[in-house]
């Protein structure tokens, strides 16, 4: 091998000299450094990120040990610390929201795995689910069923919201994305931004611009119960349980059924899957439908948690869920759920655990900024996510 290489090199340089070009002499000059200043700057940013996180955590630990601790006092003179109950409360809130993000993130992750583009409008599918839950639950409350037969009503609104958001996702795929298969990468992304904008404003013109509320939940549901040392509100318990059931259903579908096998095959390689007799179009529609159904469930969970929905409801949770999908490793379903939970927990606790000890005022306003910072941090430090991506060859490029 080496002999051949040398021979080829020789002829190449001969050829170069016969054509009168001085290729070799330029290489004698000082070799240019491959480390650009951008790389140095990136290293610096990573370093600063990690420094801020560790100082914040240290200060938090210091103030937890004793708020009068000199280190904590030095960083933030007003350090007070959190009680265990406060911390547990934050964590549960974070996990409940995180479970919802995780359900939305599944849709992003599956579509990215199969088609290789970010379906920006997925957050709006979630919004459609929340809106449909608002409409049906209010109708049920008018009929007097909401208080009396709450569990039946919950099932009903979940099913109806799944139907509506699945339909939205499937129609969206048919009209906006199918004609763009094989278009340059950014084209479907821009289209999905347009779809997202359109759906938001469809909600404005059809249902009116103001915020709409869900009917009040039955009192037995909002009571706090203690469970393995945590005080959990019933609503959050319902959210966590619903998310767990949906996740288990999805896991069964993807890992144990024939459709799931076909979905995994299409995600791996569309052409080969088609050669194996899989109807790729049908599988892509199924992927959108399943993602839409999960977003529909998440929409109801949003309604139960916050009891208020507006046309922009889908935007921030959508972006955060995408962040969760990236954090967990895009294309990786378990990762999406884990990413959602960790993002929710980080978003709820980080302002008080990192920023408050650092002496930042009004930390709760910066919750959303923390979610975006997590996304940026993960992409800077470990772009393939915490649990690794699962993408086909051509989409990894």
């Amino acid at each position: 091998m080496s002999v051949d290489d040398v021979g080829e090199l020789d002829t190449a340089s001969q050829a170069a000299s016969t054509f009168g070009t001085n290729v070799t002499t330029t290489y004698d000059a000082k070799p240019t450094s491959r480390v650009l200043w951008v790389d140095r700057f990136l290293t610096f940013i990573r370093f600063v990120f990690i420094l801020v996180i560790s100082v914040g955590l240290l200060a938090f630990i210091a103030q937890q040990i004793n708020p009068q601790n000199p280190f904590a006092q030095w960083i933030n003179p007003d350090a007070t610390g959190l009680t265990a109950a406060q911390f547990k409360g934050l964590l549960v809130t974070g996990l409940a929201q995180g479970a919802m993000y995780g359900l939305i993130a599944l849709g992003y992750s599956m579509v990215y795995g199969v088609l290789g583009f970010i379906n920006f409008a997925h957050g709006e599918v979630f919004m459609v689910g929340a809106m449909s839950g608002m409409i049906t639950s209010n109708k049920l409350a008018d009929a007097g069923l909401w208080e009396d037969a709450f569990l039946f009503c919950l099932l009903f609104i979940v099913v109806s919201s799944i139907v509506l958001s699945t339909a939205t996702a499937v129609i969206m795929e048919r009209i906006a994305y199918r004609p763009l298969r094989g278009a340059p990468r950014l084209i479907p992304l821009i289209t999905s931004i347009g779809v997202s904008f359109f759906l938001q404003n469809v909600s404005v013109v059809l249902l009116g611009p103001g915020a709409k509320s869900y009917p009040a939940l039955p009192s037995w549901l909002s009571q706090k119960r203690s469970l393995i040392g945590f005080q959990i509100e019933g609503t959050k318990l319902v959210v966590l349980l619903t998310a767990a059931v949906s996740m288990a259903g999805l896991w069964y579908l993807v890992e144990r059924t024939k459709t799931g096998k076909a979905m995994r095959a299409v995600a791996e390689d569309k052409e080969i899957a088609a050669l194996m007799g899989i109807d790729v179009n049908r599988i892509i529609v199924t992927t959108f439908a399943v993602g839409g159904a999960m977003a529909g469930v998440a929409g109801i969970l949003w309604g139960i948690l916050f009891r208020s929905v507006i046309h922009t409801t889908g935007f921030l949770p959508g972006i955060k869920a995408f962040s969760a999908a990236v954090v967990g490793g895009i294309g990786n379903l378990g990762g999406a759920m884990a990413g959602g939970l960790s993002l929710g927990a980080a978003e709820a606790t980080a302002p008080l655990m990192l920023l408050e000890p650092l002496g930042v005022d009004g930390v709760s306003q910066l919750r959303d900024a923390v979610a975006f910072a997590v996304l940026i941090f993960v992409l800077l430090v470990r772009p393939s996510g915490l649990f690794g991506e699962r993408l086909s060859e051509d989409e990894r490029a």
Partner: protein
Amino acid sequence: MTATSNGTPTLEAPGLDWRRQIRFSLIGALSSAFIALAGMPVGLDRRNIIQPLLSMGYLSLLWVPFVLASLAGSQVVLEGMTERVRSSKDLVAGALVGLGSALGLVALMILVKNFNIRDPLVNWSPQLLDLLSFNRSAGLGMVFWIVLGTTLGLMGGAMHVVPTAVRSKTLTVLLSVLAVSVLETFITDLLKGFQLEIFTDFIYYKRGGLEIVGALLVAALAIVIPLLVGDRITVVRTRVREMPADERSRVNLILLLVGSALLLVLPFFLGKITNELLANVGLFVLLALGLNIVVGLAGILDLGYVAFFAVGGYTTAVLTSPNSPGFSPQLPWPVALIVVVVLTGLVGLFIGAPVIRMRGDYLAIVTLGFGEIIRLLFLSDWLSGWFGGAQGITNIPGVDVGFATVNGIDPRSVFLLVLVFSAIAIYISWRLEHSRIGRAWMAIREDEDVAEAMGVNTTNTKLMAFVVGAVLASFSGAIFSAKVGSIFPTSFLMLISIIILVVVIVGGMGNIVGVIVGALVLIGILGGPKQPGLLQEFSEFKLLIYGALLVWMMLKRPEGLVPNVRRSRELHQEEFLQDAWLKGEIDTDDEENPS
């Protein structure tokens, strides 16, 4: 949508394509019902097009059968296929599609009459029913819609049967009547400046809209003027094109100078409202030119572009306003502008550096995140000591240019200032596009790996695009804060990034003229995120239309209204190659294979 023929030209099977007709009828029915339920007919009814005959509200429904019927009959003629024979079947097809659309409305009317679901659907109102039944009985209204829909569908189908000359004349007449009616405020204002109110009083009704006589006059002019001018314009154009290079560039220069002189004089003939409108358009032209460099030339999808606008605006506010809470040097605007440009450039570098190595789609989301982070920081209590939090910064003095002060009270001066800066931005964009770095940007847009292999330093070049885009946005931000006089975090929502993106894409990515046209058409007519356009009645629906327009453009014409030649070739590369192959312009690989 590619040709699947096996090489031999095929003729369309005779008869109607029933599936296509049914699909288009359904689309028509659903879109009519959606438009009605979205409240467009009721909301836009105030605006007249032709005084007693047609209002914008009815127009929002009437275009559906016409356009869909003509779309149902249209066919893209692919290379290697023969065109379908046009016949009376097109008329039948068009009428069917029109009928389908009308039936959608009829079904909606029956539902509205018998059920009440006004609770979730806000526009499910008796008002809508009255409007749809033309304030008569519902049954008469239904019959009327069926007749109207079928007729319009028939006309839409007829567009394919009549000779080309007739078709183009009809479309010219329709579009010019619509345009003259839509541009009413602008035309009235302009002619008032020239003391020609008699003309506008003659064609326009007092409370908006054309008079019937006016509409007929405009239609007549739309037919007569092209006949009078004839092909003189093309003659002149070919003569200019055949001139020697230096003479041609001299002609171009003279045209440019005359054009800019006219533009500079224009604001003095316009009223307050029009000047204000054009100043807003100019701010968006500046923003769109900046985003055009990032998205159009370098191919980086930056969704957080509003961040640079915000940094520009806030820096100007902090540096010039006496009310700035933390640091208030009260610099004069031009001095502040230098600091603003440098600082925004640095912010561009700072945001650009971490994201520049990411995949295109991750980059889009991360820049979006940066845009939101910057807005949240301006809004937060943490930094309210410098930026005033939700209260913002007020009392920004405006631009003192010696003989006058440019601020929001005098829109004319703002428009002039915007014009000057737009000229600078156009010059920068134009020079950069035709420079070494511009070619490097386009190379990166087409294929980053190949560009790198050709010796382009992709990282630095992409960062350069980011920084130039940021600087252009900072101009806009600086003028914005001087114009508005007070600045709040709510002025810098994510929405603005998306609207600028729509402007760039609808106008034509990578084309300076396209971007300006896009801003004029979209911001001028429909309006910006908070600024009203010429169609003020559209304010409820403009975001809906922006979204639909973005999707439609991406599906049907990704290169934009005024395309950049190279960009459109990139986007339609496969079709070009296929056509060339069918015409036998490129050799197939088969010849290399051993036979």
